[in-house]
C-alpha cells in the first residue's frame, strides 16, 4: 500500500553511504518487528473478554468491523493507485495533479484510522487465535499483528532519507497485502458465510 502518514519521497539520487543505509533499514525492520511482537504478545496474554465494545454509528459491532475494514481496504487501494501515479508507473491523469501527494497521504491516514476500532475489538475481545486448526482465525491473527508492524515500518521509511528507492514500495506493498489478507479472512468471509450486515 501503503497506508502512510506522509507522501512517499521519490528515490533519492544522492549517493547513500552503505553503513548508514543498512543501519536505517535495520532500525526500520526492528521497529516493525517489535510492534508486531507487542501486538502478538498482548493478544496472547490478554484474556479475551468476549464482549462487544463499540459500534460507533453502526447498528452493531460486527457491522462496524465488516464495513470499516472494507472501507479501509478501498482507501488503501486508492493509495496504491495514487502511489503508482506518484512513481510514474501510470500516467493517468497525464498532467500531474498538485494535490495528489496530499490525497495519497489522506487516503492512507484515513485507512489506518478506520482500522483502529476494528483492531481494538479484535485484540480486546477475541485475542490471538493460536489454534492452528482454526486456519482462518489463525491467519487473521498473524496478519493483524504483522499489519501494524509493517505500518510502523512504512511510517518510518517514509520519514527516513537516503533509503534505496525500492524500500518504500516494498514495505508499502507488504502492508497493503496484509490488509488484503485481513479483509479476506474477515469481511469477505463474513459476506460469503453469513450476511451483508446492515449499517
Amino acid at each position, binding site marked *: 500500500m501503503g497506508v502512510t*502518514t506522509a507522501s512517499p519521497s521519490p528515490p533519492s539520487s544522492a549517493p547513500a553511504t552503505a553503513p548508514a543505509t543498512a543501519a536505517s533499514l535495520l532500525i526500520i525492520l526492528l521497529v516493525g518487528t517489535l510492534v508486531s511482537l507487542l501486538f502478538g504478545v*498482548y493478544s496472547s496474554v*490478554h*484474556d*479475551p*473478554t*468476549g*464482549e*462487544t465494545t463499540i459500534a460507533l454509528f453502526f447498528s*452493531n*459491532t*460486527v457491522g462496524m468491523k465488516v464495513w470499516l475494514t472494507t472501507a479501509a481496504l478501498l482507501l488503501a487501494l486508492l493509495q496504491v493507485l495514487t502511489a503508482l501515479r506518484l512513481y510514474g508507473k501510470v500516467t493517468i491523469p497525464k498532467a500531474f495533479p498538485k*494535490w495528489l501527494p*496530499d*490525497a495519497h*497521504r*489522506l487516503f492512507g*491516514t*484515513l485507512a*489506518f*484510522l478506520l482500522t*483502529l*476500532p476494528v*483492531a*481494538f475489538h479484535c*485484540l*480486546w*475481545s*477475541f485475542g490471538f487465535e493460536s*489454534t492452528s486448526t*482454526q486456519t482462518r482465525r489463525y491467519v487473521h491473527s498473524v496478519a493483524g499483528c504483522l499489519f501494524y508492524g509493517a505500518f510502523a515500518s512504512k511510517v518510518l521509511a517514509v520519514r527516513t532519507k537516503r533509503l534505496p528507492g525500492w524500500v518504500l514500495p516494498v514495505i508499502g506493498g507488504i502492508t497493503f497485502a496484509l490488509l488484503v489478507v485481513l479483509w479476506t479472512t474477515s469481511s469477505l468471509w463474513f459476506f460469503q*458465510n*453469513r*450476511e451483508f450486515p446492515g449499517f
Partner: protein
Amino acid sequence: MLKRAVAVVEVIAVAGFVIMVALLLVKQPTKHLTALPPRTTVPAGQTGTTAPPDGAQLYKSSCAGCHGGDGGGGIGPQLRDGAVTSSFKDAASEVSFVKSGAGGMPAFRDEMSDAEIQAVVDFTRTTLQAK
C-alpha cells in the same frame, strides 16, 4: 486546504492510536471469562486415555466471542437464563443447529468434532444456565 485536512486527520489518527493502546491496557471487562471453570487436563503419568472435551474451554474459545463470556449475548443472542433451553427443547436439536448453523450462526461441523459439539452444548444447557 487539503494539506490542512491531512494534518488534522494525521493528528486524529495518532490520537486514535494512543487512545486504542490506552484502552487495551486499562479497559476492564464487565464479565470476565476467567470466571468460567478451568480447563481440565489429563493428570501427569496417566497415559493411554484421552481427556473428554472441555465444554467450558470450547465455549470460551469458540462461542464467547459472540454470545458473551457468561452467555449474556453480544453479537450473537443471549444463551443464559433459559434462553437456550427455551429455543432448543433437547440437546439433540441444539447439537444439530450448532453443526449446521443458520442465519448469523456459523456451522461448526468442520470446526469441532461431534464430541466437542456435544460437550459445548451440554455446557450451555447446564453450567452456563447456573451462572
